[in-house]
């Protein structure tokens, strides 16, 4: 399983959002760090095939990003996760499962399993508009995992989760990373520290660092700020 991003670039009017990115990712968890406007979300959208780059290609095991076979292997949780307010949680997962290609039996089984996993089983028949922000986020995580994706793209997945839920989420992702490629972008450095096998750092559309992170390298936050060319702030 290999995701190949080859010389991908994207420009919006006068701003270069993604600048000649080259990546080869295998199984594992990759933490994507970067300031606001660094190009993380744009890169993720390109990888998910919902934004066409100006240049370059993205393939997963030889399948181009535009192909149905590519999307069949993909799980995506966007930063601003949209939902249908009058659907129940269960309805939403069954709908998403149908979109992802699961048949009814698989969809039912997988939905029940994931609702249990993200602790939404008891409210699964209630309308999503009654859910709290954290519950909606957990539902979003559940839909991303429906098709046991080989490529899991998570954009700010822990936003809105309380500390306990965040820990559960990290365990979930760590487990997923054993069999899949997980690309996770976040501002919460501690999320990366605990689960990412490799770090990717972006600034102004460019990949400025790619490598493994180990504790002996010091505080990740300081390292991150150093890479961005900013001094750390000590309180």
């Amino acid at each position, binding site marked *: 399983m290999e995701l190949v991003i080859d010389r991908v670039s994207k420009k919006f009017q006068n701003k270069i959002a993604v600048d000649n990115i080259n990546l080869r990712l295998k199984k594992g968890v990759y933490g994507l760090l970067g300031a606001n406007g660094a190009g993380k979300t744009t890169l993720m959208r390109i990888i998910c095939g919902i*934004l066409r780059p100006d240049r370059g290609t993205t393939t997963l095991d030889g399948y181009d990003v535009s192909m149905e076979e590519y*999307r069949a292997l993909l799980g995506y949780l*966007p930063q*601003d996760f*949209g939902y249908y307010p009058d659907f129940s949680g269960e309805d939403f997962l069954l709908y998403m499962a*149908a979109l992802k*290609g699961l048949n009814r039996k698989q969809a039912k089984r997988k939905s029940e399993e994931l609702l249990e996993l993200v602790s939404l089983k008891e409210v699964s028949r209630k309308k999503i508009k009654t859910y709290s922000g954290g519950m909606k986020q957990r539902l979003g995580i559940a839909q991303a995992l429906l098709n046991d994706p080989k490529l899991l793209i998570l954009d700010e997945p822990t936003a809105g989760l309380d500390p306990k839920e965040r820990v559960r989420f990290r365990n979930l992702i760590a487990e997923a990373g054993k069999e899949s490629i997980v690309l996770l972008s976040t501002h919460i450095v501690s999320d990366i520290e605990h689960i990412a096998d490799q770090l990717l750092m972006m600034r102004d559309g460019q990949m400025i660092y790619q490598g493994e992170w180990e504790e002996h390298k010091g505080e990740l936050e300081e390292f991150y700020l150093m890479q961005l060319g900013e001094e750390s702030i000590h309180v």
Partner: protein
Amino acid sequence: MCNFSTLYFYEIKKILQKKMVWISFGIIFAFVIFMGVGDLFFSYEKDGAKVSAYEKIVNEKENARELSGREIDDSLLDEMKRDDTKKYDAIYQIVKYLINSDEEIRNVNESKLYQTRTDNIEQMFIDQRLTEGEIAYWREKEADIKIPFTYEYTRGYLQFIDLIYNLNIFMVVMLGISLSGVFADEHFRKTDQLILGSRYGKKILYFAKLGAGISVGTLGTVILLLAGTVLAFAIYGADGFHGVLQLVIIKSSWQLSVGAMSICLLAFTLLLALLYSVFTMFLSEGLKSSAAVMAVLLGMFFVTFFFNFPYQYRVPSQILGLMPAKILRAGGWADLRLVKIFGHYLMTYQFAPVLYFAAIVIFILAGKRMYERFQIGGR
């Protein structure tokens, strides 16, 4: 197959879960019912006594049924002129379509009546600036019309035709409210990121959405049609199916029965339901805003309904004449201009369905292209 039925089911659920859909349908349904029974709420005076509208309708029906089967000739016209009991009101109304002045009606005879009709038709040829070929076409059609006309009581079909004309604007409103969000809401809610990134989120989902929208639009139209039709025929009767079209549209040269025309109108309305549904969803994806879709739909309807090109501007005038708002109204049948295709002339009501089918296919394909190529960026 490809989970199409599941996706179709959920797309219908999305449409029907909106309160506005049920509210607008309920209001329009109430309108249709009121149009059907509204006449029954009035009362009239006859010979100093109050008569309910229902009694009036029953009387008119009885009088008209007594006259059914008789030719509108000198004998019947003389009886009409001598009558002061309103028993011949149905005949009087037909004569009045052609001869407006009461003074002239008092002196009308069979020859004068049908000559007036012919003169009116010839004048329409001039007013509408028909070509020689078109004039020859209509004169040939007119030669096949049997004169004098045989009267049949067709009030029920008149009500049905009125229903169809009014249904046109109701459909625009109902389908606009129901279907304007089919694609637009995905962008508004930002669920487009999830669905476009999924395996069946492009081609299969597009057709599931289209299918759901067409189903809801067509079913809503059928329910309204059914309600109005049942009321029209229950109150006024379904007599006169084989009556000549000229009893309803006196200046028409079509050799068609009232019943056959009604069936054509019914089929035409269902085709319009399909066209409006597809066009609304096309706009929904193109404009990505339900409010903008409604604005465009209503704007287009009213512009095409009220605006007219003078006949001397043949091409734009004839194109406008093919718009649903122009065809499905009382004067729509009066457009005598023809479309010539491969040496054959087609009337508006023959050419419009061909045009509408082509438009439906174009909107479906163009909408699919827009939908599949949509890029989520810059937000």
